[in-house]
Structure formats: structure tokens, C-alpha cells
């Protein structure tokens, strides 16, 4: 508890580095943590897959040596927990093993999911921002919308998604849009909550200044509320994009579960193909992490250009 603690001693200038520098500094820690996870994963894989190997051997009336056991747990066709290299191989195969237009290509499925995710995210965050703006400006909206927005999120989307899809299909809305709507449904809420908070976060004195200039609502929004809500907005957007992805995947199931990572996950589960589940899972998580990272990068860039990132 004696060493230096508070990071103020690193002056702002130290934080200002190029992207390359930042990536370089991140590589080692990321790799270290990654290595730790992979090791833990292998151990877990051995531990979780071993009973099956032992059972098999017992049924066949054989005994297995530790070496055999280890090897066997790493190479099952339907492991309880696939080993990292199995997932990596499946991912690699899914991405590069065939042309991107093939039904087996993870790139194709990923793209289908991604496009609906982005559409849903755009819809959802736009809706969230607009509603938040309305709520901070209108008491009627604040008092009437907010409780219902909360209630809307407690509706288990998976339960009504099929109905949504059915209803939309009956009015001729099919394809990407129904999925995007479900994903928007899940992603608007974090943005709404975060933005309501952010738009109300400026210091009272700053509002007083605006008042003394007789700025109208729109101006206060543009010049004060919006800029100072940005840290809130970006934190919310990160959550929202991950939620949008989940929404899309959820929406892909009742959409007939034909295409997209959600369908891959589902059919993988249905046929007990754990390796396929995990590779689809990782594809989705890589997508999500990439999207979150992208928003983080936009956030850093914006906040820095605004002189806020110090």
C-alpha cells in the first residue's frame, strides 16, 4: 500500500500515443492473459472429457494410461468441452476452408448476422437517443415512456420473437428487417438509460450559463447536453452493440433458423456437435469483441478530438 497509486502522476501527454504504440504495448499483456486462459481451458477440457473416456474404456473392459487419457480427451468428436485447438481448427476451417459463399462458411453466416446486427444497432441506438432526448425535454414523456420502456425490456424476447416474425411476415416484412427489429429492441434500452443519465449529467452551472444566454432546448441539447453525455453514450453503445448481436442471434432462431451464426449454434446444439457450437460461439464473440473494440476506438478518437480524453 506504499507504492504510488493514483495515476495523476502520469501527465496527460504520456497518454497520447499513436495507435501503433498502443497496440504494441497491449500485445504482451493480451498474450499473457490469453495464454493463461488457454492453459486453464486445456485443463478443464481434460477434466471434463475424461469421464467419457474412462466410461468408454470401462465398457470395453480396458484400462487407460494417463497418456492415452490425455490424448483421448483432446481429440473427441463430441467432447463435453472441446479443446482450444479443436475450436481453432473448426474456426479456421469454417473461415478459410471454403469459399465465402458456401453454406458451410462461417464468413457467410457471420456476415448475415453482422448485417442484421448493424441494422438493428443503428435502429436501436437511434431510437434510444431520440427517446432520451424526448424524455429529458418533456415531462410527459419522462413520466409516461420511461416505466414502459423498462417494462418492454422485461418481455422475454425469445418468447415473442416468433410472434413478431409471424406478424411481420404476414404484413410482408421478411428477410433482414425482422431480425434487425428484435436486435433493435434489445439494444435501444441501454442507450436510452445511459443517454437519459448523460443528458442530465452536466454541471448545474453550465445549465445556468445556457439559461442566461436564453439558449433554446435544441441549443442546450446541441451545445451542452450532447457533448457532455458522450462518455455515457459510448459506454452505452458498447453494451448496446453486444446486445444487438445477441438480439440478432435470438431473432435468427425463429426466423426459420436457416442462416446466420444463430442458426449454426442451434443446429450445432441440436445435433450435439459441440465443436461446431463452440466455433460458432467464438465467431459470434469475435464479431462482438470486434464491434465493441471499434466503438471504443471511435470513442477514444472522438473524446480526444474534443479535448476530453486526458
Amino acid at each position: 500500500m506504499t507504492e504510488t497509486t493514483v495515476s495523476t502522476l502520469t501527465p496527460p501527454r504520456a497518454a497520447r500515443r499513436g495507435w501503433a504504440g498502443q497496440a504494441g504495448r497491449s500485445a504482451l499483456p493480451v498474450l499473457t492473459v490469453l495464454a493463461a486462459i488457454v492453459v486453464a481451458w486445456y485443463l478443464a477440457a481434460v477434466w471434463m472429457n475424461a469421464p467419457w473416456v474412462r466410461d468408454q474404456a470401462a465398457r470395453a473392459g480396458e484400462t487407460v494410461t494417463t497418456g492415452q487419457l490425455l490424448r483421448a480427451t483432446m481429440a473427441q468428436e463430441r467432447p463435453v468441452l472441446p479443446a482450444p485447438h479443436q475450436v481453432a481448427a473448426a474456426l479456421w476451417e469454417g473461415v478459410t476452408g471454403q469459399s465465402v459463399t458456401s453454406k458451410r462458411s462461417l464468413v457467410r453466416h457471420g456476415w448475415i448476422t453482422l448485417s442484421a446486427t448493424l441494422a438493428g444497432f443503428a435502429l436501436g441506438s437511434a431510437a434510444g437517443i431520440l427517446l432520451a432526448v424526448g424524455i429529458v425535454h418533456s415531462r410527459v414523456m419522462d413520466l409516461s415512456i420511461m416505466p414502459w420502456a423498462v417494462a418492454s425490456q422485461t418481455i422475454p424476447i425469445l418468447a415473442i420473437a416468433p410472434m413478431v416474425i409471424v406478424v411481420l411476415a404476414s404484413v410482408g416484412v421478411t428477410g433482414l428487417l425482422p431480425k434487425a427489429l428484435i436486435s433493435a429492441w434489445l439494444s435501444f434500452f441501454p442507450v436510452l438509460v445511459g443517454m437519459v443519465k448523460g443528458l442530465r449529467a452536466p454541471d448545474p452551472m453550465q445549465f445556468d450559463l445556457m439559461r442566461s444566454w436564453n439558449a433554446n432546448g435544441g441549443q442546450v441539447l446541441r451545445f451542452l447536453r450532447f457533448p457532455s453525455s458522450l462518455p455515457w453514450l459510448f459506454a452505452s453503445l458498447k453494451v448496446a452493440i453486444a446486445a444487438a448481436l445477441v438480439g440478432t442471434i435470438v431473432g435468427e432462431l425463429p426466423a426459420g433458423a436457416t442462416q446466420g451464426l444463430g442458426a449454426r449454434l442451434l443446429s450445432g446444439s441440436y445435433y450435439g456437435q459441440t465443436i461446431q457450437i463452440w466455433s460458432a460461439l467464438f465467431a459470434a464473440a469475435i464479431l462482438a469483441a470486434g464491434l465493441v473494440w471499434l466503438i471504443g476506438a471511435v470513442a477514444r478518437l472522438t473524446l480526444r478530438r474534443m479535448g476530453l480524453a486526458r
Partner: protein
Amino acid sequence: MSAAVAPEAPRSDRAALAFWAGLVALALLWDARLGALAALWAAGWLTNGLLAWWGGPTGRTAIPLVFGATLLALWEVAVRLYAVPSVILPAPSAIGARFAADLPMILSDLWQTLVKGALTGWLLGAALAVLTAIAIDRSPFLQRGLLPIGNFVAALPIVGIAPILVMWFGFDWQSKAAVVVVMVFFPILVNMVAGLAATDALQRDQVATWNAGYWQALGKLRLPAAMPFLFNGLKITTTLALIGAIVAEFFGSPTRGMGFRISTAVGQMDLPLVWAEILMAALAGSAFYAIVALAERRVTFWHPSQRQ
């Protein structure tokens, strides 16, 4: 805005009236049934406008109720006017009747899903996220190493992990809690990390001159300053936790719980029961959210957003 200055009277009253009247007229031209619905909506909205103007604590509580009543009336009337089959969308009256009739069962489902599954998972997930955020904050090494990977792991889609977690943790509420942990972890983590970074430079300089140890600076400065952000994450995840627990039951469960009941009832075309469960979920979820929001008011009373 200063607390002492009352909100401005709505200047746009007449404009709103004209707008809604126009909309109703337009809808009427299109289709009489649509016209009726539009009129209903306009009536509710304008009532709320008046209530908001008159203000007072009664108005405050009345507004969401009027809004909700408008929505429900709209729903009931629409279902009847357009003769929507009940296997597609039952009328609110049918849902209400079912809700009342099956309340004991619905409550036992609620206990299984919300209290055992969602609440446990939420508490665990929140604690885990806060601790991780602190670990990340504590160590620049972890910050660079763990955060990207944390993003990644925590962004695993629920539909993918739910079957796996059911396989690992069994069919009962434990696996639901595990799903909820994974679901709420990331939003809370993101907000908490942002919150821990949100102290202002002057305040950090002060604790530096007092040579506060890391944990002291954390406890006395950074955690309080992070509270508004933390609560942002907590609020968002109240509803996520409920969804997570319900959805996880789709992937394996004992024969009780809201998710179980909903999916079974959908399969049985028992849509009033589906919606009665959804109603319960909405009530419980809103109460959950309200409690967290209340705690937020208590804890972050000093924040500008709470003072206006």
C-alpha cells in the same frame, strides 16, 4: 437547471392539439377502424399533456398510468376491431382473467425464475464485474490484457452459452443464474470501468497529496465517483437478468419457471397464459428496476442528474 426554477409551461399546447387532430382525421380517411385507434391515442396523450401541466404528485403518478391505460385500451380495441385470433394475440381482458386465475402458479414460477435464477445471478455477476473492473483499474497490465478478452468472453451470445451452461450446471436454477452472471457481467464491467475513470483531475491530485494508498483512493474517491456509472450498468442489467433467466429455461429446466411455462404454453397455443406470464415478468422487472433506481437516488443524491 436550477432547482428553484419551475419548468416552463408548455408553449406547444395548441400545436399538439392540431397535430393530433390532423393525424386522427388522416387515419379516419384511411380506415374508420384506424381512425378510432388514432383518436384513442390522441385522447390519452392530450390527457397526459394536461396532467403534466397541472403537475402535482397526483399528476406524476397518473401520467404513466394514463399512458399505460391508453396502450391497453388501444390493444383491446384493436384486437376486437380487427378480429385478431387469440392464438396470435389475445386481448388484455383475456390475459387479465388468466393472470388472476393462475396467480399461484405464476407466483411459483416467479420465485423459481426471478428470485432463485435472476437475482442470484445478478448479484453474483454484479459483484464479479465490479471486482474485475477494480482489478483492471488496479493493474495497467490487466487493463491491457484483460479488458479486450473480457469484452470477448462476456460478449458470448446467450443462446450459445445457455445450452452449455445447462450441461455444466444442471437443469435447475443454478444454470439460469450462471447464464445471468454471464449476461450482466459485461454491461456492468463497461460502466464500472468508465466510472472509475470519471474522477476529475483536481480530486485525484488531492488524494495524491494526502498520499492515499490505492485502496483508500478507491474507497474514498473513485468508488463514490463511479457510482452514477455503476448504477447505470445495474439498471440496464435488471431487465437483462430477467430476460436471461427466462430465456435460459428454454434450453432445459425443471417443469416450473417462467421460461418453461412460456415456451410450453406457446407450444400449447395457450397464448393468454403466455401473456399472463409476460405480464408478471413485466411487473416484477419494473419493480426490480424501480428498487435499483431508488437505491441510485439514495446513493448518488449528489450527482447533478439527481439534483435537478
